Each structure stands twice: as structure tokens, then as C-alpha cells.
């Protein structure tokens, strides 16, 4: 198992309701989430705004510390590990962010952005590795000398992918990475990701609000609603016979590009 998550709970302090003395009351965001993610699987995490899907993703990468429950990564309990303890492992789980503009340091060139994490882990032959990563995501090598703001949205998102795969991680979390893109670059990025998962034997967590996109890419789905798992399972089975009322409502709400689809 790549990930084993059990009864995961996480809450944020609500500072607007903080009493004069003492701690602010906490608003629960994840309310007891459990799932398994086998190695080599592609897991879609779907939900509306406020469902907790991004929070779950950030907890899986330990950018947030859960209140309770456990997260085991490849058999190691990482729920409450400190940043120092995690440092040796961080190379193994990487992330691609929603907004490539804010996740790429505007003051660095693409080459530096990809090479930065590599340098940190003492990889050698940096130029070769950066070039290889750019090749894999289908960007010209000359892009290494460009700044992020000189690229298009789809190209930026591919730089984000290159940065993540350059480290040869076991697991990648992609957080709404196509929601800001046009359909044409969205299709490119999705196809690229699908190809890389196969070639590199990656395990992928794919967060999205779009079930159509999830269906294309994922073999398992986790449906979140208000911080709880309302349904999970094999993609084909879930789309064929959705069990939870919320999943059914979600499916029925998607406008398919087909004027004949009954939509009521």
C-alpha cells in the first residue's frame, strides 16, 4: 500500500470567534476519513468547494498536521512526524499545484525551478536531469532559461509536472491542476499525466471537482462531501451504479456536451 489513511480528522481554528482568553474554537474540515491507496493506482478525489479535498491532499503530503487518525505512507506512520523526520522522505512524495503562477517562484528561471529540489537531495548531473525532465513533459530544452511569466498556462503546468517527476518520486499529488486551463491544454496535460503514470510506475492522487476528468484518468474514486467520504470504489463501478445520493446528484448535474442528454 502506498497510503493507508485511517479515521483522519483535521480542523482549523476559527479566529473570528476567538474568545478573549484561551484558544479559538476549531472548525472541523476533515471528519474521519479512511481509505487505502495501492501502489501504482490512480486515485481521484472529487468534491465541491468546501468538501475538504484540498485539505486532505495537503494532509497526505504533511503540509498540514492532522488532529487525529493516522496516515501511513508506504508502511511508515507519518501522521505526526516533525519536519526534520520527514525531510529524508519528502523526495518520495511530490505535489503539483493548482495555480502554476503562484507555485513557481517568479524570480527563478525554469531550469532553476526544476533543479532546486534535485540539488537539495544531492543529485548529480543536474543539467542532464533538467533536460530529461523537460523532454518527458514535452517542453523544449531552451525553456530552462525562461521565467515562468514568459510561458503559457499549459506550459507552466508542465513545468510543475517536470519539477515533481525530476525527483523520481513514488507518489504525486495533483491538486486541481487542469481547472485553470483551456480544454485544449487541459487535454494535453491530462494525456501527459496518464502517460507518465504508466512510464514511471507512479502512484497518483488526483484532486478535481470535475467527474469527467476523473473518469478519464483514475481507476479509483473517493467522493468527499462536507469533510466526509460519501462513497469510494472502483471508477467504472462507481460511474455505472453510484450508491450515495450525493454522488448521484453530482453526476446528474454535469452538463455533457450533448444537447440530447436528458438533464432533469
Amino acid at each position, binding site marked *: 500500500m502506498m497510503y493507508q489513511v485511517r479515521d483522519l480528522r483535521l480542523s482549523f481554528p476559527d479566529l473570528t470567534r476567538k474568545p478573549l482568553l484561551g484558544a479559538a474554537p476549531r472548525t472541523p474540515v476533515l471528519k474521519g476519513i479512511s481509505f487505502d491507496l495501492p501502489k501504482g493506482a490512480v486515485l481521484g478525489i472529487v468534491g465541491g468547494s468546501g468538501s475538504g479535498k484540498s485539505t486532505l491532499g*495537503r494532509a497526505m*503530503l504533511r*503540509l498540514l498536521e492532522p488532529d487525529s487518525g493516522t496516515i501511513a505512507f508506504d508502511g511508515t506512520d507519518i501522521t505526526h512526524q516533525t*519536519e526534520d523526520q*520527514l*525531510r529524508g522522505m*519528502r*523526495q518520495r*512524495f*511530490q*505535489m503539483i*499545484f*493548482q*495555480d502554476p503562477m*503562484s*507555485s*513557481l*517562484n*517568479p*524570480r*527563478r528561471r525554469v531550469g532553476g525551478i526544476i533543479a*532546486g*529540489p534535485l540539488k*537539495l*537531495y544531492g543529485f548529480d548531473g543536474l543539467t542532464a536531469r533538467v533536460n530529461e525532465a523537460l523532454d518527458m513533459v514535452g517542453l523544449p530544452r531552451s525553456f530552462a532559461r525562461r*521565467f515562468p*511569466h514568459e510561458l503559457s498556462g499549459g506550459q507552466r503546468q508542465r513545468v*510543475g509536472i517536470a*519539477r515533481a517527476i525530476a*525527483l523520481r518520486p513514488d507518489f504525486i499529488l495533483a491538486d486541481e491542476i487542469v481547472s485553470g486551463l483551456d480544454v485544449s491544454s487541459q487535454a494535453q496535460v491530462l494525456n501527459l499525466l496518464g502517460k507518465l503514470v504508466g512510464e514511471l510506475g507512479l502512484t497518483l492522487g488526483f484532486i478535481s471537482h470535475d467527474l469527467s476528468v476523473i473518469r478519464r484518468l483514475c481507476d479509483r474514486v473517493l467522493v468527499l462531501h462536507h469533510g466526509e467520504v460519501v462513497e469510494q470504489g472502483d471508477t467504472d463501478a462507481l460511474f455505472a451504479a453510484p450508491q450515495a445520493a450525493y454522488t448521484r446528484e453530482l453526476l446528474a448535474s454535469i452538463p455533457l456536451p450533448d444537447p440530447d442528454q436528458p438533464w432533469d
Partner: protein
Amino acid sequence: MRDARGDIRRPIGLRLWLSGGWLTLLALGALFTPWIAPKDPLMQDLFLGRMPPFWVQGAEPGYLLGTDSLGRDVLSRILYGTRLALIVALVAGTLTCVIGATLGLIAGYYRGWPDRIISRFVDIWMAFPPVLFAILLIAVLGPGLISIIIAIVVIDWTRFARVIRAEAMTQGAMDYVASAQVAGRTRFGTMLTEILPNVLPTIVALLTLEMGIAVIVEAILSFVNLSISTDSPTWGGMIAEGRTSVHQAWWVLVFPLITLFLTVLSFSQLGEGLKDRFDPVLR
């Protein structure tokens, strides 16, 4: 829409050239003062008191910008004052910047208790009228160059701390900081390699601004007679003297004032210009 408006670019070349040019001129003047200055700045000649500048009727040859009430050459005194002003600007400006920016960076990026402590101090500092605080400090420390520099650092570090703290907080919330953490960078490493380069343009702009302010603070302290010593010529001292005799000899006030004005303006414009230049997104 943003992009559509983005092509209206401000001309940044000219103001960099003008401000940089004036400051270079000043720096050269300060370096070679003893060779350039036409007269001894301290030499008094009561028979030559309040001589007007060269283009006015009754000017004394050799005293280009006239003399003050004690017959001292205004041009030479400005030149000697330049040395002091620039030393104060460079040393006090840099020290203030280093101390203030470091504290601001720590408070803004680490948050938590370091932020609470630093912010509390900033609050207390903001409750002092800065000029009064400076005067008070000089009164305590005694006049002198070192005292002035200390006073400037003590009263003005908050300017950097406040601005850089806010800036670091904004940058800290960006995803590229999270991505550095995902890559396994330490918090301290992230601060240096990710946050610092992004706040650097602001730091540079503030630094040159602070240099201008340092010159002003020195002038203000000279004005209330609390600067280096009464002998050494300073712009502020000359202005204070010029202020009292403005109706009889306007030039004693006007020339040091113009010098001070241009210097302060140049420092701040240089900072703004550099900030634009520094920014790859705008370049």
C-alpha cells in the same frame, strides 16, 4: 484586461539616470572635497560677511555661491557637508536595513511568538514621535557621528520591519513556498532561497529611501543644534543658520536646501527605479 493595460509602461530609464547621476556627482564631490573646495570651510572673514553669489551685484570673486554671516564660503561648506551626509546615509541606511529587514522577515515568515514579540516592539516604537525620539537619543548619547548613526538605526528599523513583515507574509502564503516544503527544504532555507529573493526589490527600494531619510534626520539634528559639533560644516547646520538670516542673505539657505532636496529626491527615485529594474516580471 490586466495584460491589455500592462503595456502602458512608465519610463524608468530617465529617472534612474538623473538620480544616479546626481548621487555619483555627490559621491565624487565627497571623495575629492579637499582638492575641489575653493576655500577652507571654517575660515571666517568678518569683512566678507553675507556676500551674494557670483551673478548678483556686489559678489566677491572666488566665492561662487556667496558667504554666510561669518564670511565663510558657502560652496566649500556644502562640499564638506556632503562627506558627512553621505557617510551617514550609507552607514546608517545599511545598518537600519539589515536589522529591520531581518526582524521583519523573521516575523512575517515564522509568525508565532517571534512575530508577537517583534510586532509588540514595533507597536511601542510607533507610539513615539520619531524626531523627538532621535533628539532625545542624541541628548543622551552626546553629539557625534556615531550617535547620529545609532539614533537613526534605533528610530527607523521599524520602517523595514513593518513593510518586510507584511511582504514576507504575502509571499509565505504563495504555493511556491509550499512547493519548496514539498521538495524538502528547511524552513530557514526556504526563507533565504524563496522568500528573500522575492522581497529583495522592496528591500532595495526601502534601503535607498532610508538613505535619503538618514540625510534628512542628520539635517534635522543639525538644525536643532544636536549634530556632530558646531564646527564641522553640515547641511542641516547651514540650513539652520540660513533660516535665521533668510531675509538678509537668502543664498545661505537656498544652496544647501537645493542640495539636500535633490539628494533626498534622488535617493527615493533611485530606489523606485531599481525596484522596477529588479523585477523580472516587469522587465
